[in-house]
């Protein structure tokens, strides 16, 4: 039987305050639907006949449907059949959790995700061994790589139809588990956990650098924006290396130039789109996999992948542990390289050498 691909497309990513405090992108619903149509066409070109999609009330599905109807009216047969997970819609992250769980139980070969880091986190929490193919439609996205979604669709299609060996097609990813009061894992982050002094969740986004205190990242990438950039501009750590980085920050840092506290350095970092902000760095160190870290900050909120999610007080005991190889993604770059080297998309075999 041909493999089925799951689709989680979040209609409400990229809607937060960063559109006002920074000039962040506001990707329209119609654009999200167009991205999805491009992915669907690529999947179909690789032989995927069926996809199963998370239901939502944000309009993505209805715009996609419009695209399918128009293609059919023109006599084109470009897309796989779209099925919807039978479940109620709440309009919250719980929908993503539920849909991912159902897709995993139904045995999908991969899940294509359209959303920000938060959406990818919600999928990663429930996907088990099912690989994720991420597409950024959010704000500060550090987790999904930025590329044309058609290529993500193609790589996913090639990977799930078995034309690329799994050790090339799929890559392991790190995550940080956050445990509160020694209980089971309370939450996790794919890229970063930031401890900030604001004790309310509020508008969720992080942009007041003077409130940042501790930062834990799975990879420290100077080519992204957000928390990972702060770490990446101090000591880059790759996605494919073991372990991450821990950075301690101090109040102040509201001005560029010499830091207010003699023991600190001021770093200018792109913390949001178009927003270069000074952060006062006290020190940093590697965060090895499997070693629990206990933060020094005693109260505030925990931001996961750039959004405040939980608040904690002096009474709570936190511990953070990085795990290597916690879940899988489609390695788009490796798949496409393999596809080129092995001419996977040529109709009939062509000569390996172009020598005439």
């Amino acid at each position, binding site marked *: 039987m041909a493999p089925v691909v799951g689709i989680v497309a979040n209609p409400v990513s990229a809607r937060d305050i960063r559109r*006002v405090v920074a000039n962040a992108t*506001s990707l329209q619903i119609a654009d999200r639907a167009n991205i999805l149509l491009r992915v669907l066409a690529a999947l179909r070109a690789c032989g995927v006949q069926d996809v199963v999609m998370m239901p939502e*009330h944000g309009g993505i599905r209805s715009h996609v449907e419009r695209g399918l109807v128009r293609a059919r009216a023109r006599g084109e047969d470009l897309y796989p059949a779209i099925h919807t997970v039978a479940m109620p819609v709440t309009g919250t992250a719980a929908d993503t959790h539920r849909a991912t769980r159902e897709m995993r139980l139904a045995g999908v070969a991969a899940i294509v995700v359209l959303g920000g880091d938060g959406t990818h986190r919600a999928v990663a929490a429930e996907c088990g061994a099912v690989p994720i193919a991420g597409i950024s439609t959010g704000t500060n996205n550090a987790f999904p790589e930025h590329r044309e979604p058609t290529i993500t669709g193609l790589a996913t299609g090639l990977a799930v139809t078995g034309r690329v060996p799994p050790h090339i097609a799929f890559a392991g990813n790190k995550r940080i588990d956050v445990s509160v009061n020694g209980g089971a894992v309370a939450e996790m982050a794919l890229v970063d956990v930031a401890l900030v002094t604001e004790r309310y*969740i509020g508008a969720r986004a992080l942009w007041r650098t003077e409130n940042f205190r501790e930062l834990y990242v799975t990879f420290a990438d100077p080519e992204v924006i957000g928390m990972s950039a702060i770490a990446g501009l101090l000591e880059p750590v790759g996605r494919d290396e073991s372990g991450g980085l821990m950075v301690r920050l101090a109040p102040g840092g509201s001005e560029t130039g010499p830091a207010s506290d003699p023991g600190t350095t001021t770093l200018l970092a792109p913390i949001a789109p178009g927003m270069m902000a000074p952060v006062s760095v006290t020190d940093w160190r590697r965060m090895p996999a499997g070693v629990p870290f206990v933060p020094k900050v005693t109260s505030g909120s925990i931001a996961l992948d750039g959004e405040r999610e939980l608040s904690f007080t002096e009474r709570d005991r936190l511990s953070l542990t990085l795990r290597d190889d916690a879940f899988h993604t489609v390695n788009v770059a490796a798949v496409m390289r393999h596809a080129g080297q092995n001419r996977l998309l040529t109709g009939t075999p062509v000569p390996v050498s172009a020598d005439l």
Partner: protein
Amino acid sequence: MSQNPFPLDKADLLKAYRTMRTIRDFEERLHVDFAKGDIPGFVHLYAGEEACATGIMMHLNDNDRIASTHRGHGHCIAKGVDVHAMMAEIYGRSTGACRGKGGSMHIADLSKGMMGANGILGAGAPLICGAALAAKVRGDRGVGITFVGDGASNQGTFLESLNLAAVWNLPVVFVVENNGYAESTAMEWAVSCDSYVDRATGFGMPGVTVDGTDFFAVYEAAGEIIRRARDGGGPALLECNMVRFYGHFEGDAQTYRAKGELEAIRASRDCLTILSERVIEAGVVSRDELQAIDREVADRIEDAVRAAKAAPLPEASDLLTDVYVAY
């Protein structure tokens, strides 16, 4: 008491709670009195939506203008309109905010910057563009806020106002109060393009969506948006996702709601409970302090109803006063 982790000091937290509690009690009292047949005309209750009006109005002063909707009691109270004058107006008494001639959907108080509730959907948006233009010309740093429901946002007036505000760079904030329904029509049946933020983007202004049942989410987002407008940064749209606890109007049987929907939203999305639990848990405010406010508000509403009932109705001769304004 531990250190205050919130973006408001304790006095302002109590003020926000008092405003939200006043709106809730005001509306719950109207719900009861309307059923008894004591109140003329139509009333649309704001109960369940208090965090939105309050989180926004905490950033405004009397010089800032707002243009409200048919569901306007919450906006009036949060903007500082006198509760006694509002109650008397709704009871149709001559001591009312509009001398008993307007009723629920026309309460206005220009001294507080409240340009009026409005029975015509989408009518507040052009009005607020005018007020914002005046503020811009005067250079007094005033801002204008207009509220619009998910349904009313489809009115041409609203869309034209987005355009006008964008091209004139007016200090306006368009607040979409998305409670999921326009009368009995669920939003997904009625709104093309599916996202209010997309509409704002289309007109070249930023849009933000927040959980309108979370006072702090509204307060923080509104603060940034209002500050930006005051500083000359131009208009923006704020979509607040929220819930209404009663019918569209008093007397609505609400057959369009899913089974258990009302019970579920009252249990999990009550903005007053969400706010009070958060401030108590943080140790900044005690339950006793909030209960003292509850008692004070209950007394005030009771007194407003008593005073309204005791006040005279307008006379026939009052029909010809306040009709035209001479400039």
